[in-house]
């Protein structure tokens, strides 16, 4: 296995590696390292083909702890690398030249915690408004220093004679929300780009620290509002893992059914809006009509159309309503017919093929360095799906078929998503026939989680959704960090998008299936 080889290398570097119980922590190995050794360490991970899932910073008042989560596609055993720096002068070497994806997380940490990353080329504002002159996620009030402010205000784009800077977004029909891309254009070609995020930064992580676990829970659905159940599920499961709660089997099946329905709804919405980006209006209406069928079913189950608050710690809020399984069955039959229609309308269309084939190819290597996950990764020929690699909840009983394409272009991403709808349909078919009887939630729950940290990853519609919770034993999380798939998927675009035509950029950006509030959190 890959991990063993890596462990030897880590030994050679001189880090303390500790094996931790996966069932309680969500990661396998806990690596403690000095900050000077970080680049060397990252190099070792890189050699063994690991990718960075996320970078977390936890403020322990005197010290700041930086956590790097590494994972591997073929050997999905998570490494958690920790290093501590002094809160008064936090400075760490940057690993952006090994993992450019991590470089983006570093920018985020720099903004929110004031950690300086030595050697990082661009630490300017990404999320925050320049008026906010303190580090928001620090436990104490720490104002931004003059020197740091200069770094944050950073680069001002300058055009030369041949090119000009163009704002794409925040209000642009094809950025799907309030993403802003500063494009350096040379005629129709994009020479360089500078994304500006944070237009929908809604302080999710800060809010988690201010509210109790159950008070915060409804807001998880408002991050990725297209497939909110993935985030809810992740949060709920993380807390269950932390407290060691065993959920009844029936609840697990119900969760799986709702989740898969939500995944189909999300992919349908993507299909509609993607075709709208490419200029075809009609599939949008078809896709939304099918999506409404799902929303009807889910509304019957959960009570709301979009931002569900259905999963509960230890089960679900309500048992299945009457006629639910029949409705799902009807929907499955209908959707199977409809998929043929989509194939006829879209898949074979010569213009569509011309717009998507060979456009926006994400090579495996780029996907690894930026931490791309989800359908976007599977379109690049990597069979990495959390539902299969780290089965959780209902997916321990039912295995989904992993849709896979090799090309890595926009068309492959389109096909993977259609295949995922198919796979979800067959998974649903299996699930509704096997829903066991029994209780739908645990009656007795612990009041508050024990001290410690926990990571949990689920497979959302856009990729690996992860949550890292540090509990100090109180009723509020000490630190909560989301791993948002859209963010990692998006930052890969800053590399593959260079040299594209603006029309291709729209086609690629659309195919990545971004949800902006999830990136901004």
């Amino acid at each position: 296995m890959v991990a063993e080889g890596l462990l030897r290398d880590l030994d050679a570097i001189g880090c303390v590696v500790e094996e931790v119980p996966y069932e309680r922590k969500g990661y396998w190995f806990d690596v403690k390292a000095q900050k000077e050794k970080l680049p060397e360490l990252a190099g070792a991970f890189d050699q063994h083909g690991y990718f960075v899932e996320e970078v977390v910073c936890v403020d322990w008042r005197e010290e700041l702890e930086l956590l790097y989560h590494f994972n591997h596609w073929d050997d999905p055993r998570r490494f958690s690398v920790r290093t501590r720096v002094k809160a008064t002068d936090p400075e760490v070497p940057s690993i952006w030249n090994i993992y450019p994806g991590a470089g983006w997380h570093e920018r985020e940490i720099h903004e929110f915690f004031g950690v300086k990353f030595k050697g990082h080329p661009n630490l300017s504002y990404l999320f925050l408004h320049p008026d906010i002159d303190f580090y928001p996620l620090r436990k104490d009030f720490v104002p931004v220093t003059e020197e740091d402010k200069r770094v944050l205000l950073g680069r001002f784009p300058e055009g030369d004679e041949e090119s000009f800077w163009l704002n794409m977004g925040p209000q642009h029909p094809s950025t799907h929300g309030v993403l802003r891309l500063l494009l350096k254009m040379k005629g129709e070609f994009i020479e360089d780009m500078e994304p500006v995020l944070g237009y929908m930064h809604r302080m999710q992580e800060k809010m988690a620290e201010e509210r109790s676990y159950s008070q915060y829970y409804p807001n998880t659905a408002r991050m990725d509002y297209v497939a909110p159940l993935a985030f809810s599920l992740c949060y709920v499961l993380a807390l269950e893992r932390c407290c060691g709660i065993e959920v009844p089997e029936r609840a697990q099946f119900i969760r799986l059914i709702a989740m898969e329905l939500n995944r189909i709804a999300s992919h349908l919405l993507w299909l509609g809006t993607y075709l709208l980006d490419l200029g075809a209006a009609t599939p949008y209406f078809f896709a939304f009509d099918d999506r409404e069928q799902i929303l009807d079913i889910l509304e019957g189950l959960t009570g709301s159309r979009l931002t569900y608050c259905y999963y509960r710690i230890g089960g679900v809020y309500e048992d299945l309503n009457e006629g639910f399984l029949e409705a799902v069955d009807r929907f499955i039959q209908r959707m199977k017919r409809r998929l043929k229609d989509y194939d006829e309308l879209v898949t074979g269309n010569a213009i569509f093929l011309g717009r998507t084939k060979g456009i926006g190819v994400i090579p495996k290597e780029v996907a690894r360095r930026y931490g791309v996950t989800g359908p976007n990764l599977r379109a690049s020929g990597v069979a990495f799906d959390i539902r299969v690699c780290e089965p959780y909840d209902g997916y321990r009983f039912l295995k989904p078929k992993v849709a896979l394409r090799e090309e890595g272009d926009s068309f492959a991403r389109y096909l993977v998503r259609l295949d995922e709808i198919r796979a979800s349909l067959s998974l649903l078919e299996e699930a509704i026939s096997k829903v066991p009887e029994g209780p739908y939630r645990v009656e007795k729950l612990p009041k508050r989680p024990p001290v410690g940290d926990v990571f949990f990853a689920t497979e959302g519609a856009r990729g690996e959704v992860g949550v890292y919770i540090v509990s100090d034993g109180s009723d509020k999380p000490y630190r909560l960090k989301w791993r948002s798939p859209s963010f990692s998927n998006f930052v890969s675009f800053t590399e593959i998008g260079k040299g594209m035509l603006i029309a291709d950029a729209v086609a690629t950006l659309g195919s990545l299936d971004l949800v902006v509030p999830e990136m901004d959190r």
Partner: protein
Amino acid sequence: MSLVLRDFSFVLIFILLSFLLCFLVFVVPWVIAPRSKGVKAQDIYECGVDPFGSAWVRYFAPFYLYALIFVAFDVDVLYLFPVALGYWREGGSDRFLVLLIFLAFLVFPLAYAWRKGVFWWRP
């Protein structure tokens, strides 16, 4: 007055008519529409943020190449009409030769441009 002039006096009058109509249509909103003021109301729209630099920039070359071959083409293509006008009913099969020669003049610039890579887009 010749027939041609009479024909084109129609065209001229219609042009004037269209301008008049347009003008009328623009005067009405000037009179009856409410107006709004704001700091940025009169600024250039660029997705809601301030644009960087002017939009009058040196534009990149492929467009001009297309324009150039078009100039080579369009004049030539228009001369095809006189050739075509009496093509069928008058003259012998030598007319076909004339047509071919004309088309050859069109094919050469196209082939040349093609060969030179005008139709191949690259950054």
